[in-house]
C-alpha cells in the first residue's frame, strides 16, 4: 500500500502506511471541513440557517487524523463541535448542508440541525448537544461490539470541558474495567466555552486523568495530522486486539468563537493569531509537498475541488424539501403510523 518511491526513506509511519492518494484524500477532507464551516457560517450570517453552530475551524487535524484509520463499521460519537468528525468519518457534505437548511434530504430530515448531525450509515452515532453526553454512549457501543465478537471500535470525541463532567469519569471507568474497544479522543482546545483549562481543572493535561482508570494517556499535537493519526492508530490497534481503551489528547485550538454569541473576551488576539499561524491545513500541505507526495498544483486542485463540492452542496440544500409542519410528531416512536 506504500506510495513506494515517492516518500523519503526516513519518513514516519504515517507517510509509509497510506498511499499518496489516501493522504491527498485526507487533505481534501480537511478542506471540506474548513469550507463546509465557512459556508455554513456565511449562510447563517445571511439568515439562511437558524439556530446556533459551533465551528471547529483550526481543529481539522484532529478530526481527520483521528478518523483516518477507522472502518465504516467502526462507530464514532461526536460533540456539539462535530462537523469535522462527521466529514472525517465519511459523511456527504451536501446532506449535512441539507440538514442545516432544515430539509427532508438532510441527515436528520431537518429535525436535528448542527447539534445532532449524524450519519448512521458511516457509523457516526451523532453529534450531541449535551457536553459529555456521547461518552457513555460510546462505551455502550463498544460493549455491543464486544458482545457481538466484532473487532470494530467505538471512538469517542469530547472536549477538555467535557472532561469535568461526571459522565467522563463513569464512562472511562467502565470502559477500562470491562476492557472495551473504545478510543477516547479529547480535543483540548484550551477552553470550555470561556473557561480555560487552568480555571476548570487542577491538572495540566486531560491525559493526566487516564491514570485514574489505568488507561494509557497520550498527548499529541492536534494540529499535526500525522501525530494524531499515529497515536490514534496505536490506540485503535490496541482496542481491536481486545486490550482496552486509550485516552488520546489532541492539543488544538478553535480560532473562531465558541458559538455565534462569543465576543472572545476571555482570550487575547495574540493567542488567536499565534494559533492561526499553526493552522493544520498549510502544515499538512507543506509536509505532503516536502515528502514529494503532492505538488503545489495538486494541492490547489484539491482545494478547488473541495470548494466546488461545498458550493454545490449549498445549492443542493437550498433546493431541498421543507418538512411538512403537520408531521411534528413523526418519528417520535418507531411503530407509529407515519
Amino acid at each position, binding site marked *: 500500500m506504500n506510495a513506494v518511491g515517492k516518500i523519503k526513506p526516513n519518513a514516519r509511519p504515517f507517510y509509509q502506511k497510506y498511499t499518496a492518494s489516501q493522504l491527498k484524500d485526507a487533505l481534501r477532507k480537511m478542506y471540506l471541513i474548513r469550507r463546509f464551516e465557512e459556508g455554513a457560517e456565511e449562510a447563517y450570517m445571511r439568515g439562511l440557517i437558524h439556530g446556533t453552530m459551533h465551528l471547529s475551524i483550526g481543529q481539522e487535524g484532529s478530526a481527520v487524523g483521528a478518523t483516518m484509520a477507522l472502518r465504516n463499521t467502526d462507530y464514532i460519537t461526536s460533540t456539539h463541535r462535530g462537523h469535522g468528525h462527521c466529514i472525517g468519518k465519511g459523511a456527504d457534505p451536501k446532506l449535512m448542508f441539507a440538514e442545516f437548511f432544515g430539509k427532508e434530504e438532510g*441527515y436528520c430530515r431537518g429535525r436535528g440541525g448542527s447539534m445532532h448531525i449524524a450519519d*448512521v450509515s458511516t457509523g457516526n*452515532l451523532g453529534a450531541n448537544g449535551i457536553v459529555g453526553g456521547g461518552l457513555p454512549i460510546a462505551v455502550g457501543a463498544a460493549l455491543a461490539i464486544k458482545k457481538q465478537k466484532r473487532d470494530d471500535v467505538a471512538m469517542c470525541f469530547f472536549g477538555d470541558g467535557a472532561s469535568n463532567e461526571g459522565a467522563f469519569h463513569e464512562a472511562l*471507568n*467502565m470502559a477500562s474495567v470491562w476492557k472495551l474497544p473504545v478510543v477516547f479522543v479529547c480535543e483540548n482546545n484550551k477552553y470550555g466555552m470561556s473557561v480555560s483549562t487552568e480555571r476548570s481543572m487542577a491538572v495540566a493535561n486531560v491525559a493526566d486523568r487516564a491514570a485514574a482508570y489505568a488507561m494509557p494517556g497520550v498527548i499529541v499535537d492536534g494540529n499535526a495530522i500525522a501525530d494524531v493519526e499515529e497515536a490514534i492508530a496505536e490506540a485503535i490497534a490496541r482496542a481491536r486486539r481486545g486490550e482496552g481503551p486509550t485516552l488520546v489528547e489532541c492539543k488544538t485550538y478553535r480560532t473562531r468563537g465558541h458559538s455565534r454569541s462569543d465576543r472572545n473576551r476571555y482570550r487575547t488576539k495574540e493567542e488567536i493569531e499565534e494559533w492561526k499561524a499553526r493552522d493544520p491545513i498549510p502544515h499538512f500541505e507543506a509536509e505532503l509537498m516536502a515528502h514529494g507526495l503532492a505538488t503545489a498544483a495538486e494541492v490547489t486542485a484539491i482545494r478547488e475541488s473541495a470548494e466546488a463540492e461545498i458550493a454545490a452542496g449549498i445549492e443542493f440544500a437550498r433546493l431541498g424539501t421543507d418538512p411538512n409542519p403537520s408531521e411534528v410528531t413523526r*418519528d417520535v416512536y418507531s411503530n407509529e403510523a407515519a
Partner: protein
Amino acid sequence: MSVRELTYAQAIQEALAQAMDADPSVFLMGEDIGVYGGAFQVTGDLVHRYGEDRVMDAPISELGQAGVAVGAALAGCRPVLEFQFSDFATLAMEQIVNQAAKLRFMLGGKVNVPLVMRFPAGSGTGAAAQHSQSLDAWLAHVPGLKVIQPSTPADVKGMLLAAIDDPDPVMVFEHKLLYKMKGEVPEEPYRIPIGKAHVAREGRDVTVVATSIMVHKSLEAAATLASEGIDVEVIDLRTLRPIDTATIIDSVKKTSRLACVYEGVKTLGIGAEISARIAESEAFDYLDAPILRLGGAESPIPYNPELEKAAVPQVPGIIEGLRNLVRGRM
C-alpha cells in the same frame, strides 16, 4: 398453556430469562444483579444460568449505565437496565430524557433505541425520602419514552416481554411492595400490549383509574363499598405513556364519576393527567361530580411508619373518598 403461581418478582425473572433465551442480543445490567441477585432478588440466580456477560454487575454509575444502555441499543443490543431504586433515576435523567427518548426523533427516524429500564419504586418499606419516591409522572411527561406500571405478576411478565420486544425505550415502574405478591402466571412467553388499560373490576357508579399498588387498594375499597351498594369500576391504567384514554372515556360515560388513585405526589402526578384528559373530552358532559384525585401527600416520604402510611393513599381514605363522591358530599 400451563399456569402456576408466581410472585411478581419471579414473574419478572421468568420474563427476563425467556427474553434472553429467545434473543441473544438481550442482556441485563445493573447494580448487584449478579451474585447478589438484585436488591429485591428479582434477577436471583440468573447470573448462574446466563453468565456474567449477560447479567452484568456495573459500577455504581447510574448516568454512565444509562448511557451504556443507549449506546448498546444503538449498536444492536437490547439492554435491560435495572435501577436499584427508582430514586436513582435522578442521576440518569440526562441519558434517559435527552438521549434515549430523543435520539430517534433528532436523527430523523434513522435509528431506534430498543432498551428497557426497570425502576423499583414506591414507599412502604421504611426506607425514607430518598428510597421511596414515585417518579413515574416525570417520565410519562417525556415524548419518546413509553412508561408502564404493571400491577400483577401476570401483567408484569407479559408487559415486560412486550417492552423488551419494543423498538423504543420502555420504562418499567415496579412497586417494591408488589414483588412478593403472588398470582397466576402462564409458563410460556406471552405479550401484553403496551398502551392498553385493563378493567380490573366492572361497576356502574364510579370509575376509579388506579396505577400499580393502588389498583389493589382500590379493589379492596371497591369490595367494601359493594356491601354499601356502591358499585365501583376499577381501571388498571397499566401504561402511563401512551395513555389509553378511550377506555377511561367509555367507563366515565357509563358511570358519570371519576376518581384517580395513585401513589405519586398528587400535584402533577399521573392523576392530574387522567383528570385533565377527561375534563377536556367528550366525557365531560357525562360527569355528575367533580373529578376526585387521591394522590401522595405534598411531602417527601417520611421514615416513621405511621407518617409513611399517612403520606400515600390507604384503603380507608379511598373508601371515604369514593363514598363521598358517589353520595355527593365533596
